[in-house]
């Protein structure tokens, strides 16, 4: 039997965090939450999650792109799948996300099916297993 997957949600809007938690708890995942980039980065290092759902625009000294870049530069974390969440969805944003090292992108408002499918696809990737 496979171990429960640990998923970290880094999102400043509590309603969106709850919605994501509610959706992902339909599966068999262990969900953790952080409300800003700094807290998210500390939790990534402490938890070493199997996947990070990361909001792009957050108040404070680290936004989503910066947290993603830090994850990619940290030995032992650099293969952790990162899914960026954004309300903008412009081509330049996708490009910036790709440069920061994100694996996937969800544009708000997103469908719960889209969320589950994206998370499942990322967790099934071999790179995630070797993180």
């Amino acid at each position: 039997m496979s171990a429960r997957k640990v998923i970290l949600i880094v999102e400043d809007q509590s309603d969106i965090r709850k919605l994501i938690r509610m959706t992902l708890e339909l599966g068999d995942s262990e969900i953790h939450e952080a409300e800003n980039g700094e807290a998210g980065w500390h939790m990534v290092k402490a938890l070493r999650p199997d996947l990070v759902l990361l909001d792009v625009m957050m108040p404070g000294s680290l936004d989503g792109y910066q947290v993603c870049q830090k994850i990619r530069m940290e030995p032992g974390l650099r293969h952790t799948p990162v899914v960026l969440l954004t309300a903008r969805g412009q081509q330049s944003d996708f490009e910036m996300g790709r440069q920061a090292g994100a694996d996937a992108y969800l544009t708000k408002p997103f469908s719960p099916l889209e969320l589950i499918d994206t998370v499942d696809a990322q967790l099934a990737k071999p790179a995630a297993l070797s993180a």
Partner: protein
Amino acid sequence: MSANLQILVDSIEEGLLIVSPDGVVRLANQAATRHFPIILGKRLPAEEVLVQVAAAARGYVRLPLVFDIDSPVQVGEKDRLHLKIIESPLGGGFLVLVRNVSEAARFQTIISNFANLMDVELSKPMLDFSQQLGRLLVDIVPELEKQETLAAEMQNILRQGEEVAGRMKQLATFAQVFAKSPVLASERIPVMDLISALLVRVKPLLEERNIKFHQAGVTQELPIIYGSRAWLVEALYGYIEHMVRHCRVRSDLELQARPYGNFISLQIRNHGRGLPKLNDTRSFLPFSRPTGDAKEKAGVGGLGLGMALCKHIVELHRGSLRLNDEDGDITAFVIELPAGAPPEAINPDLGTEQARRYAEDLTRLMQRQRGAKASA
């Protein structure tokens, strides 16, 4: 009530009332009597306020209670009054604070109207005029070359036209910033990019006065700013332009960036003869002009808009500005801008849209879950 207490409360600019739990007025200052026809010892003649006081007395509402009402003493279009009810610090009953919020809104409207007037009625015609003059000059250059005096006069007219057009352009910028609130963009701006764009703008200025520019702390590690890149460059350029104007020729100008809590601090320091009375808050108001020694120190004229514009742009980005007068000839502007995305960048309708999207897909999600359980 003692006479001194009455003097004290009358000196308060906001309306102030103390009412008993059944709405009888025990104390009122002069400002309050302008808002309500008050008789001490009688119930306050404002039913909306009495309802709230009664609710507060019964514990139905939590204090401080804040609400707005229309002025009960005006006819026609009524001013809006902003009220706050708290427990009275002087014995029983409640303290009611009253502020007219329509007056401040009217002042903003006047400024906005004026700015629009400048933009539409004056700025564009003046810029058109100046451009027309330039074209005219090009057309008649061959003729002018034969008549040196006429050529010089035409050049003077053109220069004066350009000067007025420049002033008008500044007024148009003022109109854009104050009347049209341009800082709606939520661009993601790395500080390094902002400073690079700024340096391109200030390079000719620095070269003109042979001023050496130094920067420190401008690294990729700095937090990101969200806002309007163009307007922030405009504001920073305004400060640097002001500093350069007051620097000694062949002196130094320094820009230092550093994270400061959830803010980014940008300090610009010059080594000059000091800035003219910019620590006076009035200097940051639109159309302010230096007087006395400060005027002499400033040395140049202007519309008195530059610093006001820069400050307003920084404040639209939820930032702040201060001037540090250091020892000797050194003066420093310190601009603090919040790190990360502003709360207003979040689309207020997004929650509704997200809920609708979930509602649409919920049935399919449930069907899928049931299918997964059945196959398991």
